[in-house]
């Protein structure tokens, strides 16, 4: 009952939160003293990056670990990992685009050799590599295992890549929302809007994941129907 209700409400609540975020972000919150209206990117870029780097990639990694663990191994987890990684690619691309739009007036360039930007771009290639690896293997068991291993190795790689590029050179601003001792840097309507954006984009991820998962289940059902036909044809070959 609760599960059904939450599934029904996921879409409308996501839409409501995002509309609210955009309304507050564009019309209610004030412009920044230094950045002016550019600060409104704060209600999109950090939340999108949070979903891209942690929520979606994290979901794909956890599902992959659980898939490889024999006790919890199931096709559902492989499907979740696959779908989460696909959604992850969308959010990584959005992170890079919104980051570039914000970076152009701030840094004066569309692309900067900054740790977060560079490691996010590499993460994007890893996510695309994951999808390419899935396409390269027909055997569903082999495909699931290889892609699960790749997702785990990529997740281990992410901090190594991040620190290497950070130590290489960094231009990016420090923590945006919190200080290093966890004190909030933004206040009032800006803080609420920021919080709403995080909630809204996180729910958007789960809504997209659910939609993509359903699509995958439907695709597999269609494939099974095609397979039944192929089996019948193959068996008829025998009865000739």
């Amino acid at each position, binding site marked *: 009952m609760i599960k059904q209700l939450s599934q029904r409400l996921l879409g409308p609540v996501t839409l409501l939160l995002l509309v609210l975020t955009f309304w507050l972000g564009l019309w209610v919150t004030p412009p920044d003293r230094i950045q002016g209206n550019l600060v409104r990117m704060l209600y999109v870029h950090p939340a999108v990056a949070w979903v891209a780097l942690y929520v979606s990639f994290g979901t794909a990694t956890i599902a992959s670990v659980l898939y490889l663990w024999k006790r919890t191994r199931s096709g559902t987890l492989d499907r979740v990992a696959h779908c989460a990684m696909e959604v992850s690619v969308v959010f990584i691309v959005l992170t890079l685009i919104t980051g570039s739009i914000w970076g152009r007036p701030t840094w004066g360039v569309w692309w900067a050799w900054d740790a977060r930007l560079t490691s996010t771009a590499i993460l994007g290639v890893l996510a695309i590599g994951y999808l390419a690896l899935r396409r390269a293997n*027909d055997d569903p068991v082999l495909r699931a295992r290889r892609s699960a291993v790749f997702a785990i190795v990529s997740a281990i790689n992410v901090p190594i890549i991040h620190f290497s590029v950070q130590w290489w050179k960094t231009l990016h601003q420090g923590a945006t929302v919190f200080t290093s001792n966890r004190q909030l840097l933004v206040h009032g309507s800006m803080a609420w809007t920021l919080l709403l954006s995080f909630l809204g984009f996180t729910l958007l991820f789960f809504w997209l994941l659910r939609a993509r998962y359903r699509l995958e289940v439907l695709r597999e059902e269609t494939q099974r129907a095609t397979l039944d036909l192929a*089996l019948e044809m*193959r068996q008829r*070959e025998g009865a*000739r």
Partner: protein
Amino acid sequence: MPKGLVVALREAVVLSSGFPLLSGVNLELEAQSLSVITGANGAGKTSLLRLLAGLVSLSSGEGTVAGVDLAKGDLRQLRRRVGWLGHEGSFYNDLSVRENLVFAASALARPLKDIDSVLERVGLRSRLETTTKALSAGQRRRLGLAWLLLRRAELWLLDEPYASLDEQGRVFFDALLADVVDAGATVILSAHDPLRSATLRPRQIVLRGGRVESDDS
């Protein structure tokens, strides 16, 4: 699986890129027996042997080979108990005959002194230091057999082993298979046509369209 059965398949299906290589095989084979799987090109002979060797996974149906469940069991355990001779050759082309066999014997923890006797048996003693890629097709097949003899596997799976063998080679091969079965192994081989052997009386299984069409058991 009843005792004494090495292979038990029920409606076994193997898929590749959505195409059913095997479309529902039902088969039971007893231990210490010799069986020949025949059929036209594309009938599913190699796929069946690969399934029995644990080299491809079962897409649907049930199956047990040498006590290992093909759907849920550890296929690596199965592979360790199988001797495989593919029609493509079974070794590293850049290594010599001796080096290939030293590698196999070391991997299987078999004494290296077995290599000489095995090569003597397959008639390749004079080719000990020849690089494998320089061997003729028939000689490569004999090297594959030497590799298998070193293995002492309980289940021999041979994919078209008579291809590229001359008459003398065929006679030799018939005698070898008879010895192997006498020693307690189970042998399953594939061939294009029914076996023309004066000495062997194998069980003949015919595949068509990825299923067993006839079985003379």
